C-alpha cells in the first residue's frame, strides 16, 4: 500500500477538482449540521448548568391561612425555624405584600383596598431558606401538611419547566442535526458517485488488470473522508469562535447568567465535531461504493 499512497493522494485531489461546487456543497452541509450540533451541545450544557444553579438557590414560599392572627403567624414562623434543614425564615406580611403590589401598579394603599373589595386579599408569606437544596422537596412536602399553611410553592416548578424545555430542545436539536446529517451524507455520496462515474473507464481497466477492490475504493473513501473532515473542521472553528464570542458578550451584559466555560467540554466537542464530519464522509462514500465495485 506504501507504493500506492502517492497515487491515492493524487486521485483524491483530482476528483475534488472535478466537481468543485458539489464538493463545496458537501462540505457546507456537513458544516451546518455539525455547527447546529455543536451549539446545541453548548446550549444544553448551559441549560443544565443554569438549572443546577437555580436549584442551589432554592427557597420555599409558604402562604399562611388568611384568618391567622399576627401572633399565630409569629408562632408558625418560629415553629418552622425549629425544623431540621431550615436555615432562616423571613416573614412578608399581608400589609407588606399589598404595599409591594401597590408600588408595582402605582397607586395609594387605601385606594387599592377599596378597589379590591375593602379587604386585603394577600396572605402572609413565609420565605424559607434551606441549608441543603437536596432537602427542598422533602421540606416542602412536610410544610404542605402543616395546617397553618394553605399553599407551599418552591422553585422546583421553574426547574422542572426548564428541564422539560431542555428535553424538548434536545429532541428538536437531534431532529435538525439528523436531517442535516442525512443531507450531508447524501451529498457526499452523490459527489463520490459522480467521481466514480467520471472515472469508470479507469476503474474498468483497474479491475481488468487485477487491482484489488480496496485499492480501487481507497481514493473514493479518502475523498469522502476529506470532505467530511473539512466540514467538521470548519464547524469546530465556527462553534469555538462563536461560543467564545457569545460567552464574552453574555458575561459583560447579563452578568447574573452563569456561563459554562469548560476546557474539557470544549475539547471534547471539537474532537466530536471532527469525528462526526469524518463519519458522515465515510458513510457517504460507503453508500455510493457499496453497490458499485463488486468485482
Amino acid at each position, binding site marked *: 500500500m506504501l507504493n500506492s499512497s502517492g497515487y491515492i493522494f493524487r486521485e483524491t485531489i483530482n476528483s475534488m477538482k472535478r466537481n468543485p461546487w458539489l464538493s463545496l456543497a458537501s462540505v457546507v452541509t456537513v458544516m451546518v449540521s455539525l455547527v447546529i450540533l455543536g451549539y446545541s451541545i453548548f446550549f444544553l450544557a448551559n441549560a443544565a448548568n443554569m438549572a443546577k444553579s437555580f436549584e442551589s438557590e432554592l427557597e420555599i414560599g409558604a402562604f399562611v391561612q388568611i384568618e391567622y392572627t399576627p401572633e399565630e403567624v409569629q408562632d408558625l414562623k418560629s415553629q418552622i425555624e425549629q425544623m431540621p434543614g431550615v436555615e432562616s425564615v423571613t416573614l412578608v406580611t399581608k400589609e407588606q405584600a399589598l404595599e409591594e403590589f401597590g408600588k408595582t401598579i402605582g397607586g395609594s394603599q387605601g385606594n387599592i383596598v377599596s378597589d379590591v373589595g375593602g379587604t386585603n386579599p394577600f396572605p402572609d408569606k413565609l420565605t424559607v431558606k434551606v441549608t441543603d437544596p437536596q432537602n427542598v422537596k422533602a421540606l416542602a412536602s412536610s410544610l404542605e401538611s402543616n395546617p397553618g399553611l394553605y399553599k407551599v410553592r418552591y422553585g422546583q416548578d421553574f426547574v422542572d419547566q426548564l428541564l422539560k424545555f431542555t428535553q424538548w430542545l434536545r429532541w428538536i436539536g437531534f431532529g435538525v442535526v439528523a436531517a442535516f446529517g442525512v443531507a450531508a451524507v447524501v451529498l457526499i455520496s452523490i459527489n463520490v458517485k459522480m467521481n466514480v462515474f467520471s472515472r469508470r*473507464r479507469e476503474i474498468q*481497466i483497474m479491475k481488468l488488470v487485477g487491482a484489488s477492490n480496496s485499492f*480501487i475504493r481507497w481514493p473514493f473513501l479518502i475523498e469522502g473522508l476529506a470532505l467530511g473532515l473539512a466540514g467538521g473542521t470548519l464547524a469546530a472553528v465556527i462553534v469555538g469562535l462563536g461560543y467564545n464570542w457569545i460567552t464574552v458578550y453574555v458575561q459583560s451584559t447579563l452578568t447574573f447568567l452563569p456561563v459554562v466555560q469548560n476546557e474539557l467540554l470544549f475539547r471534547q466537542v471539537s474532537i466530536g465535531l471532527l469525528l462526526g464530519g469524518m463519519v458522515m464522509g465515510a458513510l457517504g462514500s460507503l453508500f455510493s461504493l457499496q453497490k458499485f465495485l463488486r*468485482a
Partner: protein
Amino acid sequence: MIQLTNVSKIYLNGARALVDVNLKIGKGSFVFLVGPSGAGKSTLIKLLYREETPTRGQVQINSKNLVRMKDREVPYLRRNIGVIFQDFKLLPNKTVFENVAFALEVIGVAKSEVRNRTLATLELVGLKAKETAYPHELSGGEQQRVCVARAIINNPALLVADEPTGNLDPDTAWDIMELLYDINKRGTTIVMATHARAIVNKMQKRVIAIENGRVARDEEKGGYGYDA
C-alpha cells in the same frame, strides 16, 4: 490449463449464450474461437477472466475453480490473465508509457520496477519510440500494441483476446498476429475470438467453432470453415 465442464450461461433476459459446453485447452496452446456473431464467443471469453460466471457448470483455470472463487480473489486471478479488446480500452489522458505502467501501478509494484518493466514491454511490442505519445496520436495498430503491452506486462500465463484485429486493416492485423504468435512462442496460452477468416486459415491452429451456444466443431490445425 483451461477446463470447462457442462457450462451453460443464460443471461437475466433469458438469452441462452452457452449451452452445455465442454472444453479442455492445454498449456501453451493457441486457440481460435470462431462462429457467427452472437453465437457465444464473447461470453466464453468473459467466463475465462471471470467477468461473467456460468449459470451451470464449472470453469477451471490452472485447477482454480472460477465459479466458487470469492470476489476478493478475482483480482489475483486477473493478474495472471491478460485481456485484449477490439476497442483497445486505453485511457485517453495518459501517455503510452502511463497506460502500460498503469497495470503495474494499480497492483502496487514499486516505482523503479514499474519503469524498467514498462520500457522492456514497450520494446517487445515495438513501441519504445512512442513512449510519450497519447493514444489519439497513434494509429489503430499502434493502439492495439499498447493494449497488448498492458495485457502481457505481468507475464500472464493466459492471454484472452476478443476480436483483437476487428478494427484493423489486414496488414496491421497481421502485425498484431505476429506479435501474438511471438508471445505464444514464449509459453503464454492464447485464446482468441475472431472473424478474421484469412488469419485463421493461414495460422493452422486449433479452431473451436461455436454456434447457438454449443461447440459445433473442434479441430487441431483447423480452418475458419465459414463462407465469407
